[in-house]
């Protein structure tokens, strides 16, 4: 099986490890070898654990040999987006302001995955402080899409998407503030799920926009995503927005969905996200694949109807006021005092000057733009017209969802209006870059769960299908996504990712 290790699903690796067919050290070495061979081109990782990963893997193998009772994730390697703090392991959030920082503690999700016996392969590249849709805002390096190295891997979790799609990790965690899990998953042919806001702990996740940030899985299969999601979910007393309810059973929903029986499921197609009169900016190939997937769902018994959510038209402007406003406040913690960079502290400058120089040199242009925009939107005299108005629009978006749930069980749309765009195409035009998040923003603002699952190729590049569900009904996302995945894999005779080498 050794030649297939880096093309396996995490679930298959887990089974092989539990059966004793593979050791964690073997699996981990296979991934480290592939990283060594391919990451020079892809640029997915900011830090690779190397020997530490092998040691962790050998410890799991020894525990298994000694008969310890290990969970299903034990020995399975994993990559974490560099936004999660990891004890003793460099963490930058893609920013120069944290270059060289080794955190003194683990994020809750990192601690849970460590306790489950996963092996950390490394930390993946990202747009600086998760601000971006292409990973080009990383202060460190460009990350390339394994389907076409001249194109972006999506963002902000583009290091995670490139790593998993390129076979440099079996799965990874990303974070999603306005689409940063779903959009990179869509453009690299992966499954990516943004959980219900509050259902996964934010403790130790470097904050961008605290009312929106949520961690979630990025994987090769729907079942893998469900398994990883279950491992990180659940109440955390260290996160005051954490929902105190039982961890949902998601793997069961994925298995049931793969059976392909969707009779009675009511599916709403959102008109405002690529429907009639709302196709501007959408590629026809994306809309074609989306409609074919809807037809597939109908064929499995789903009742499909169109649903109008008029406030979704204003999700993009509302988001690009709310997120920068929260960011301008959150990023005030980078003051050059307690951690990270400090510039100009030569005795001649006072604290304010040192802070301003540190932030000038430590932050990249997109971060500065958003801090300035957020500071503006929150200023006296503009607050009501911008931040306040955006918060009221957020209420309208939530109401559109609430109304829709009276008639349908899930809402569906394309995940992104276009396939992966060429590297460099949008870097100088922030407004064009923001349009990549058009379809993912409503679920973010309402805090509802949403998954992206592949629905075929357009011009040789992956297209994503988004399924949104009511808060805490993440299981519906997994059920529908698994049904779609199984039906497409059966029709194609292989998984979408298997075609990655033959892409244009």
């Amino acid at each position, binding site marked *: 099986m050794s030649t297939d290790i880096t093309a396996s699903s995490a679930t298959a690796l887990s089974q092989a490890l539990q059966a004793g067919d593979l050791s964690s050290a073997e699996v981990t070495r296979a991934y480290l070898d592939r990283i060594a061979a391919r990451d020079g081109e892809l640029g997915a990782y900011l830090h690779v654990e190397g020997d530490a990963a092998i040691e962790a893997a050998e410890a799991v193998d020894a525990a298994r040999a000694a008969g310890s009772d290990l969970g299903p994730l034990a020995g399975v390697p994993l990559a974490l987006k560099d936004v999660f703090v990891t004890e003793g392991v460099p963490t930058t959030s893609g920013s120069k302001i944290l270059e060289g920082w080794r955190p003194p503690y683990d994020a809750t999700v990192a601690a849970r995955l460590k306790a489950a016996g996963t092996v950390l392969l490394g930390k993946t590249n990202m747009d600086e402080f998760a601000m971006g849709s292409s990973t080009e805002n990383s202060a460190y390096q460009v990350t390339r899409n394994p389907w076409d190295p001249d194109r972006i891997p999506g963002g902000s979790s583009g290091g995670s998407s490139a790593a998993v799609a390129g076979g440099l990790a079996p799965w990874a965690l990303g974070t999603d503030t306005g689409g940063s899990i779903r959009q990179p998953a869509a453009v690299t042919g992966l499954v990516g799920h943004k959980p219900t806001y509050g259902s996964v702990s934010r403790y130790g996740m470097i904050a961008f926009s605290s009312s929106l940030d949520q961690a979630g899985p990025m994987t090769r299969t729907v079942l893998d995503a469900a398994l990883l999601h279950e491992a990180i979910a659940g109440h955390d007393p260290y996160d005051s927005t954490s929902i105190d309810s039982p961890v949902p059973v998601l793997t069961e929903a994925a298995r049931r969905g793969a059976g392909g029986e969707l009779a009675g499921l009511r599916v709403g197609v959102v008109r405002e996200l690529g429907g009639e009169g709302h196709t501007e900016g959408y590629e026809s190939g994306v809309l074609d694949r989306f409609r074919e997937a809807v037809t597939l769902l109908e064929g499995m018994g789903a009742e499909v109807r169109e649903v109008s959510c008029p406030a979704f038209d204003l999700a993009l402007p509302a988001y690009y006021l709310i997120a920068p406003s929260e960011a301008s406040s959150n990023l005030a913690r980078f003051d050059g005092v307690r951690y990270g960079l400090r510039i100009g502290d030569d*005795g001649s400058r006072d604290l304010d000057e040192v*802070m301003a120089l540190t932030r*000038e040199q430590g932050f990249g242009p997109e971060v500065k733009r958003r801090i*300035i925009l957020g*500071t503006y939107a929150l200023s006296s005299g503009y607050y009501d017209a*911008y931040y306040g108005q955006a918060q009221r629009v957020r209420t309208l978006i939530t109401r559109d969802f609430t109304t829709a749930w009276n008639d349908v069980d899930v809402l569906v749309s394309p995940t992104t209006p276009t396939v992966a765009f060429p590297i460099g195409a949008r870097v100088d035009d922030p407004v064009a870059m923001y349009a990549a998040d058009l379809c993912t923003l409503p679920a973010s603002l309402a*805090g509802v769960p949403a998954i992206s699952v592949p629905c075929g190729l357009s011009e040789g590049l992956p297209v994503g299908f988004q399924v949104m569900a009511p808060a805490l009904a993440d299981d519906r996302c997994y059920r529908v996504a698994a049904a779609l995945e199984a039906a497409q894999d059966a029709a194609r005779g292989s998984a979408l990712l298997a075609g990655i080498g033959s892409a244009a």
Partner: protein
Amino acid sequence: MSTPSPKGQLTRDEVAHLAHLSRLAVSDEELDLFAGQLAAVLDAVAQVGKADVADVPPTTHAVPMTNVMRPDVARPSLPRDAVLAGAPAAEDDRFRVPRILGEEA
């Protein structure tokens, strides 16, 4: 509620002022670049003003919660050395900061 006219609202001087408030020592080149880009962004986001939000309450958070408590139980904090190890400057077991007064002390 009236929406301020977005076009040209963010002048170069205004961006400079906001940068100062945000403790960002931006360069002249950045000011030129950001003023143009932020005017375009502001033009796009000002569309929120189109919505009729009379009597619509604001949403600050997707999960409505107030006064979240956890048991008031003492637990060990991070070791001082581990915390100071990440600081740009430390002295006498404390964070060392630049002078905080505007004049030479």
